[in-house]
């Protein structure tokens, strides 16, 4: 078993715990990560020479961040670690890599653990390509990784726990927060509170703390608010026009806007590896199909963390270890059943909490689908929502791949990572006259034909 090579892609919470478990079992473990240092996005570490302590960087999660960083540091010498390396393709048993300074490479593997993480799900609005508009995650990276605010007066608009967390982190770091605009109606969030409480009291308490801390600083927090337009000159955001809960148009001055509506799992590698996908209607994501422990439908492929399904860092750590135990078990190794059971329990609890969050902060898909025709939908190639709708309507594209071929939305440099979530909502909401009519198969109505076999006696001799 020790000759088997297991490739782990990603060194966030899921990838680190997977690598730790695999290495402990004696498997040859290779970890490839795009970042220079392990930790993923949530526990991302600043470059050398930065001095803020973990408590300042990670807040309530400092102990978890340090534990994860320490766990990975202990693996030095026992794993083949390749930072600043990207996997750009997977063919049968071989991953194709590109490393900073080392160029192209091929990494043969017997099992593949994909811990690719997630990125912000955004909804384009007029002006969103102007300098000064960034994702929520991007605004957090600027602060955590670089000690910078994205502007002098930053407005946060979107939904989900990251909205309040990043706004709070900015306020606490001394940056000026112009306001927080949440698309979720207050009543919807309130109704979901019971589910959040049942699934994770401590996490709910943190979320309420962030919101209360913003209000205590006099920062306006609005519910059921949606962005209408980033205002300003061509190279400079000066404000956001938005629709408030009463439907009125209002403006807030700002020179930086952070936006995001939950997260999108990065499933590109799972797709390339031939994994089957299924639609999850609650978060509105197409997700790779897995069993409870992370086995994908493609043989030898395993998924863990937010790249498998958005459930947060605690779930990622549990699912990373579980996926590693699945690899070990599938290769005939022994696994500690009590620990596996405990990990499954932790993962199930975190997923229940994630589902409750999806109900508390629903993706405003109708807002995405109602995007004005002139809005740039694809920021890679400046393709408008109207051009995409024309591809879907006049040209008759009924699914994303044909719409992409006709419009180029999703074909640019980001390969749909930014635009695909909103583009899918535009396509899903197209008017019925553009949905191709059903083709019949030559049967008008069902009818009994009353066929009876003829009496063999009356058939001519040569008919027998």
């Amino acid at each position, binding site marked *: 078993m020790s000759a088997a090579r297991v490739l782990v892609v990603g060194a966030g919470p899921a990838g680190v715990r997977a690598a730790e478990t695999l290495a402990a079992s004696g498997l040859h473990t290779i970890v490839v990560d795009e970042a220079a240092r392990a930790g993923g996005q949530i526990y991302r570490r600043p*470059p050398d020479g930065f001095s803020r302590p973990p408590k300042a960087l990670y807040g309530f999660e400092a102990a978890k961040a340090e534990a994860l960083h320490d766990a990975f540091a202990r693996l030095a010498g026992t794993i083949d670690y390749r930072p600043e390396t990207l996997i750009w393709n997977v063919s049968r048993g071989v991953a194709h890599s590109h490393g900073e300074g080392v160029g192209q490479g091929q990494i043969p593997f017997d099992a593949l653990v994909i811990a690719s993480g997630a990125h*912000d799900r955004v909804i384009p609005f007029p002006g969103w390509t*102007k300098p*000064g508009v960034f994702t929520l995650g991007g605004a957090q990276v600027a602060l955590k990784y670089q000690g910078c605010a994205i502007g*002098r007066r930053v407005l946060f608009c979107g939904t989900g726990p990251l909205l309040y967390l990043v706004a709070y982190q900015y306020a606490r770091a001394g940056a000026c927060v112009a306001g927080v605009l949440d698309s979720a109606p207050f009543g919807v969030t309130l109704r979901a509170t019971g589910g959040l409480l049942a699934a994770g009291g401590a996490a709910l308490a943190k979320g309420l703390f962030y919101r209360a801390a913003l209000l205590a600083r006099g920062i306006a927090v609005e519910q059921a608010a949606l962005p209408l337009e980033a205002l300003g000159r061509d190279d400079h955001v000066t404000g956001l026009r938005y629709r408030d809960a009463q439907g009125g148009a209002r403006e807030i001055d700002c020179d930086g806007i952070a936006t995001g509506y939950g997260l999108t799992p990065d499933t590109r590698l799972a797709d390339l590896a031939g994994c089957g996908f299924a639609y999850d209607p609650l978060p509105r994501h197409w997700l790779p199909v897995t069993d409870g422990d992370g086995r994908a439908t493609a043989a030898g492929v395993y998924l863990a963390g937010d790249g498998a399904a958005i459930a947060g860092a605690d779930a990622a750590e549990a699912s990373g270890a579980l996926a590693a135990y699945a690899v070990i078990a599938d290769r005939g190794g022994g696994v500690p059943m009590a620990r596996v059971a405990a990990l499954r329990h932790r993962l199930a609890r975190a997923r229940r909490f994630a589902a409750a969050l999806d109900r508390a902060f629903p993706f405003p898909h109708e807002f995405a689908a109602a995007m004005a025709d002139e809005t740039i939908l694809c920021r890679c190639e400046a393709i408008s929502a109207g051009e995409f709708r024309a591809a879907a309507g006049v040209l008759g594209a009924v699914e994303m791949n044909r719409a992409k071929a006709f419009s180029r939305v999703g074909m640019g440099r980001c390969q749909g990572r930014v635009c695909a979530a909103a583009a899918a909502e535009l396509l899903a909401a197209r008017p019925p006259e553009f949905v191709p009519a059903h083709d019949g198969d030559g049967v008008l109505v069902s009818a009994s034909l009353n066929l009876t076999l003829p009496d063999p006696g009356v058939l001519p001799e040569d008919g027998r």
Partner: protein
Amino acid sequence: MPTSPSGQFVRVAEHDRQPIRLTIDGALLTVLQGDTLLTAMLIHGRRLRISEFGDGPRAGFCLMGACQDCWVDLDDGRRLRACSSLAVGGMVIDTGSS
């Protein structure tokens, strides 16, 4: 080090690092060791590049290597993703604005 009044980004922490100098659109500017190229450029200005599709300047978006909005041109012919490349003293960058 003071933050440039014409910059998009504002430093709120980690001021105590070694200064390095690079040239952006012909101006010699001082940034800090450990700044990404994106941070270095947005501390002093509001753009990284001009969109080749005619819709104006861009300054990056996701800062985590997903959106590909922050590729910049260096005078030595290299193209770098500014959010995931550290600034190095002596770099010469053109945003296309001059």
